[in-house]
């Protein structure tokens, strides 16, 4: 398997280790925005609060994994992936999913 595919697979494994919680939060935020757009004339007023909830919960997940599930990092480090690389790629992907979903709802 080429190294890029291998890296992507490792990133996916890391993301899956916390994705259940983060995807549920994304869906809850999207559902809140959907309801706001259905019942309110100015759903965009809700947007900053929803984005802050996502950012804060992402921070909590980051703290929890770094402090209570840090053993798994040695697996990825032994395969050449740093914590910084794992976090920056997976958080970027997660936030991208979040914003794509919110954009689809607003449109």
């Amino acid at each position, binding site marked *: 398997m080429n190294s890029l595919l291998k890296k992507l697979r*490792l990133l996916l494994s890391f993301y899956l280790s916390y994705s259940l919680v983060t995807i549920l939060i994304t869906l809850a935020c999207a559902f809140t925005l959907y309801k706001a757009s259905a019942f309110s004339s100015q759903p965009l007023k809700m947007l900053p609060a929803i984005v802050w909830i996502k950012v804060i919960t992402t921070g909590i997940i980051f703290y929890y994994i770094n402090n209570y599930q840090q053993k798994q*990092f040695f697996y990825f480090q*032994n*395969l050449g992936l740093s914590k910084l690389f794992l976090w920056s790629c997976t958080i970027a992907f997660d936030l991208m999913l979040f914003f794509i979903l919110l954009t689809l709802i607003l449109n």
Partner: protein
Amino acid sequence: MVHTLEADSITLDFGTRSILSSVYLQCETGKITGLLGRNGHGKSTLMNIIYGTLTAKSGTIRFDSNYTARVYQVPGLAVYLPQFNFTPKALTLKRVFEDFDVDFGEFEQRFPEFRGKYTNKVRTLSGGQARLTETYLLLKSPASFVLLDEPFTHLSPVMIEQVQELIMEAKKDKGILITDHMYRHIIDLSDTLYLLSNGKTHLIKDLSELDFLGYAKL
């Protein structure tokens, strides 16, 4: 060609407590370097500093005399077995062996108890089996140096003998830094032996020094 990995003048404090004080240690490919020390004297801390996952207050890590900031980020340089099992439990053995580019067939042949477990998840293994698997993967990986922190933990006497054989085989083309509380095994395996005591490393030339430095009565 012989490669060297050195930790030089490593100093680390936790608050007011000095853990490591101007520590020096050298590993070479083709040799096993043993690191002994009592609980809490900084063996794992030193290994983490060498590997690059912990930053020392001062000191340098050098590979072939060149400064290396984070050893684990240099492809093929080193791998590290921490004190605990580190493989994500949701992964299958198939996946883990693929990630490390190690042949499962050879592993299965050597350790028949793993026969039929290729598609099993890591969480189905016992603590000893998981430890053995991780140690095997790291010793068979293409890295030049392997840092082993308590590799004999959770292992039965038979498994310990098998791991010792693996380490001796791996030594042919790797440098190995090993620490464990089963000090007799470490003494038997090591070509070079250091004792970490009171924050400093002592190169052991005669085993009586272990007694003199208060580590063990041999």
